[in-house]
């Protein structure tokens, strides 16, 4: 059962379906995740770009690092700058942002930014970082929303130049080394936070990030949905597949059941062919044809056995009843002689019948060995005609011959037997005073014997059967004449063992012609 076609089909179907669903699910999951990240990234990138452009405006490209303080002192108002360090950026940013917007503290890493805590303390409002970014922009980084943005700006050396209030502690992502002097962008996920890092041509690192916890949760939910939907599709697919497989397999099961039920006793039943145009219908038709041949062979075999036993039973009945009658009381010598003669005739008939049956059986099993030799068909024919001529004369039938020397490779005794059978049939089924013409010659590289009689002929519907065993056109004549219906069958077996052919043509009341074609051989 486990190895049955149905189970294998279903298992394969399930595996393929599972693989397709898994690949598809992973693909959809990944696509969705990427879409989410891209959506998020777009915002992060826009924000980062604002900061980058701000940075570039503060420190034009031409300005080499470190940035000149002078340039930024254009807007000098730095009361907090009592602790001026060499960190120009921190200074510059503070200075540059302050006039434009509400200034906030610089990053906590900046040891020089003392005012920051104070600013925070002094204003309950979350302070915007430096860089002079507009307020509405800075609003992006405020609020209790967990998914709010945060940013950090580092110098190329890793000093924090500015950062938003809620920015978490982020180690400096040293990226400038890779492609110094060219802007770079890197996106990453760190601790369920999505961050994009823009590196300006100077090596300033602008990181903008946000928590993507909600996205992750949403994605997990989507994944759960995908898995559930996938399982549903799998279930539907398996049920549908099972149904389809069952439908496809059912005719096979029916055929095998039908074929199994056909035994020797029920050979006449057939597989029900409903659809003849598909492969299964063709298979069923092929099987049915095989059964036809099998049945024909069986019936022929059974008929042959019945006929053979029938032919043996009649002489047996003669022997049995004659002896019984003779022994039932004292008889005269004449009576005994008659009874014994009847028994002898019956025994002779049985002997001849058994000989014929054995001969046929040997030809059937290809056991019969022909004594093949080069011989002249003309000689064999004329010899046989001489042997049978007395029988013909007895019936007033003349035998005419027209022969020419024809060499074939054959078994003299067997071919002589063929001729004897054909000639005795031609005489037996002839009219009184009729004639038999025997000709031997060559035709298309074959040796041909033709026996033509002027006898009673054979009806067209009987003609195809005359080479069948025990087939009698007229049962009476052959019985009276001692034939048993095997003569032509034996002729056919012998001729076919020579790789030859035997054919009959006939006109009722005009006569029958039998032609034997034998290959010339070597």
């Amino acid at each position, binding site marked *: 059962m486990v190895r049955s076609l149905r189970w294998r089909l279903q298992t394969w179907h399930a595996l393929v379906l599972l693989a397709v669903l898994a690949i598809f699910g992973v693909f959809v999951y990944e696509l969705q995740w990427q879409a989410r990240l891209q959506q998020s990234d777009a915002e992060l990138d826009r924000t980062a770009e604002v900061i980058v452009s701000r940075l570039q405006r503060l420190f034009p490209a031409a300005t080499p690092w470190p940035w000149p303080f002078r340039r930024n002192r254009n807007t000098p108002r730095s009361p907090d700058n009592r602790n001026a360090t060499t960190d120009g950026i921190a200074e510059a940013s503070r200075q540059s942002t302050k006039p434009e917007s509400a200034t906030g503290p610089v990053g906590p890493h900046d040891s020089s930014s003392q005012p920051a805590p104070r600013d925070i303390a002094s204003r309950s409002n979350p302070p915007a970082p430096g860089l002079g970014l507009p307020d509405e922009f800075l609003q992006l980084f405020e609020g209790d929303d967990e998914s709010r943005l945060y940013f950090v700006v580092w110098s190329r050396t890793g000093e924090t130049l500015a950062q938003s209030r809620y920015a978490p502690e982020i180690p400096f992502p040293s990226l400038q080394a890779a492609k110094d002097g060219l802007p770079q962008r890197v996106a990453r996920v760190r601790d369920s936070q999505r961050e994009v890092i823009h590196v300006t041509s100077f090596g300033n690192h602008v990181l903008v990030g946000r928590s993507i916890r909600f996205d992750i949760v949403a994605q997990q939910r989507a994944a759960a949905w995908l898995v559930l939907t996938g399982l549903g599709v799998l279930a539907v697919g398996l049920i549908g597949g099972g149904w389809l497989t069952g439908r496809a397999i059912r005719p096979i099961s029916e055929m095998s059941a039908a074929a199994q039920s056909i035994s020797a006793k029920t050979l006449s039943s057939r597989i029900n062919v409903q659809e003849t145009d598909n492969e299964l219908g063709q298979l069923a038709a092929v099987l049915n044809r095989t059964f036809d041949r099998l049945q024909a062979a069986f019936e022929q075999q059974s008929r042959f056995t*019945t006929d053979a*036993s*029938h*032919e043996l*039973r*009649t002489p*047996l*009945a*003669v*022997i*049995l*009843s*004659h002896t*019984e*009658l003779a022994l*039932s009381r004292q008889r005269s010598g004449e009576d005994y002689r008659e*009874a014994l003669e*009847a028994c002898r*005739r*019956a025994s002779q008939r049985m002997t001849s019948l058994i000989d014929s049956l054995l001969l046929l059986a040997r030809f059937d099993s290809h056991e019969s060995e022909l004594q093949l030799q080069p011989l002249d068909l003309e000689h064999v024919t004329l010899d046989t005609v001489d042997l049978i001529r007395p029988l013909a004369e007895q019936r007033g039938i003349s035998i005419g011959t027209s022969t020419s020397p024809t060499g074939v490779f054959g078994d003299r005794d067997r071919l002589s037997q063929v001729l004897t059978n054909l000639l005795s049939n031609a005489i037996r089924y002839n009219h009184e005073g009729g004639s038999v013409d025997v000709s031997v010659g060559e035709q298309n590289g074959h040796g041909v014997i033709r026996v033509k009689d002027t006898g009673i002929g054979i009806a067209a519907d009987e003609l195809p059967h005359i080479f069948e065993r025990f087939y009698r056109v*007229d*049962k*009476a*004549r052959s*019985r*009276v004449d001692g034939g048993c219906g095997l003569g032509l069958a034996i002729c056919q077996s012998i001729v076919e063992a020579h790789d030859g052919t035997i054919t009959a043509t006939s006109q009722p009341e005009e006569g029958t012609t039998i032609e034997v074609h034998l290959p010339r051989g070597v």
Partner: protein
Amino acid sequence: MRVLVIEDEPDLQRVVWAALQEEGYAVDAAEDGEAGLYKATAWDYDAIVLDMMLPKLDGFQVLHRLRQSKSTPVLVLTARDAVVDRVRGLDAGADDYLVKPFELSELLARLRALIRRAAGQPRPVIEIGNVRIDTVSRSVTRSGEAVSLTATEYSLVELLILNRGKLVTRAMIYDHLFNEDDDSLSNLVDVHVSRVRKKLGHDFVTTRRGQGYIIHG
């Protein structure tokens, strides 16, 4: 009793014919279906022995046509012993079946049974007054003493007894006691009847003048 044997094998036909003859039957023979059917319809046989494999008309055809006009008991002889063949033969109207090769004694017993059944006398021993007839041993006793009858005399007694209470015409006696080759001189019947009367008592057979004979059971 008159029996027709339709059999194409000459040796078999002759031995059956001889055996029936010895049993006191009047026997006709035919060697093909056509001749057999002709004889079977032309005469009132007490039974027919019919071979199935026959030239011209086979046994089934003979049976089929015979049954359109006659109900003569038919015992079929055949070499085909398959159940289908037997069923087919019986369904075609055969009364009994015998497969070749057969024992003559069985053939004779079956024929006797067929004839008795057809006459409505299933018992093999029939008693009328002090006369007792055993159809199996073909013997007659009168008051317990064996009576010696010739084959023809016995056949006459058997015919009259199987038809007891019914008028048996002279034509019937000719039909049933003599085969087609016997000379049927009309006074021969009277000769046989008078001999039977002599042996079994005058009252055993009643004469209906101008009609025939009758045994009152």
